[in-house]
């Protein structure tokens, strides 16, 4: 899976977070497992 520019990836085990500043191929791993893209901070409705 390509790493997307500007995306944050987090480790499910520890609190490590990686910010992609240059996109490219390859997989980010931490604690022996693939890091997941961080989801955006939840915000309430504006309507």
């Amino acid at each position, binding site marked *: 899976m390509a790493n*997307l*520019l*500007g*995306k944050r990836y987090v480790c499910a085990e520890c609190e490590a977070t990686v910010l992609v500043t240059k*996109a490219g191929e390859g997989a980010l791993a931490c604690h022996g497992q693939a890091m997941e893209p961080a*989801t*955006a901070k*939840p*915000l*309430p*409705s*504006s*309507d």
Partner: protein
Amino acid sequence: MPVVDLDPGLVAAGPAAVDAALADRIGEPLLVRIPADGLAGADEGRLRPWLRTAPVATLGVGEAPRAARDALDCWVGDAATADRLADGFDRAPLAALTAALLVRAAPTGVWPGLVAESTAYSMLQGGPEFAAWRAARSTTAPASTEADNAPRVRVHAEHGHTVVTLTRPARHNAIDVRMRDELDAALGALAETRGPVILRGEGPSWCSGGDLGEFATFPDPVGAHVVRLTRSLAGRVHAIERRLVVAVHGACLGAGIELAAFAARVVAADDARIGLPELGLGLVPGAGGTVSIPRRAGRAALLRLLWAGDPIDAHRARRWGLVDEVVPPSRLVERSHELAAEL
């Protein structure tokens, strides 16, 4: 009725005479109807500054040259249509006038326009017309209790183009917080890519606008302004607008047409119904429509759609410039790819 009909002779007499005629009503959210024959006899140079700064909405009625029409907020050819717009204006005069003043004084540029629109929207969230809608609704239509966890947005490649599909067909792709956030993330990631993007909706409709079940759930109007600009779908769509095709069908309401109108190309199935229902809630468009629709079709078209409240069909939308093409529903997907390939 918050409507004043100006006598043709009065308009011809100039701004001082008009002000005198309005003196008893000033301070109210008014729609002032101006007959074309009055404008014909008026000194345009003297009337223009008044039209630009009048704290009332202006609606011209009759046949007049383009330059005269453009000086007013909105223009219609006949009295029957003017009556329909006046009735629509009367549903929420504060919101209707706010929209007219907003698009008349529109700042240059998309982002300044989105900030101004959001400010006006938040102001109206704290106003009496939205409160009245909210009070009437709480007894008849409780907030949605839907709890499905299905994804709201799907992104995939098709014929070499990136296709973003809204996937909430049972609700005509109404935008709730989850869809907003999923679409925000999907479009944000696409901003880093190249190549054409096609936006479309699964099921009977492209997009019926904001999810009414979640309306009035904002924490407070001022905080909502900040959230709206933080998760701005209009901003996301604008960022990729030059390589974006939107395919609309069925309900194309509120945010549905507001977001679509940013795109380089909009293709509509002939079953599309295009409208701005916001005035019914005492609000103005809040998904960029006061920027995208005037840019495509002029501010008069925006106000006409908003004040009337009734949706228009795809063919009329094409004549107004809101959509670029109308095709049979069976051709919609194919045509959207053809248009994307031409970008």
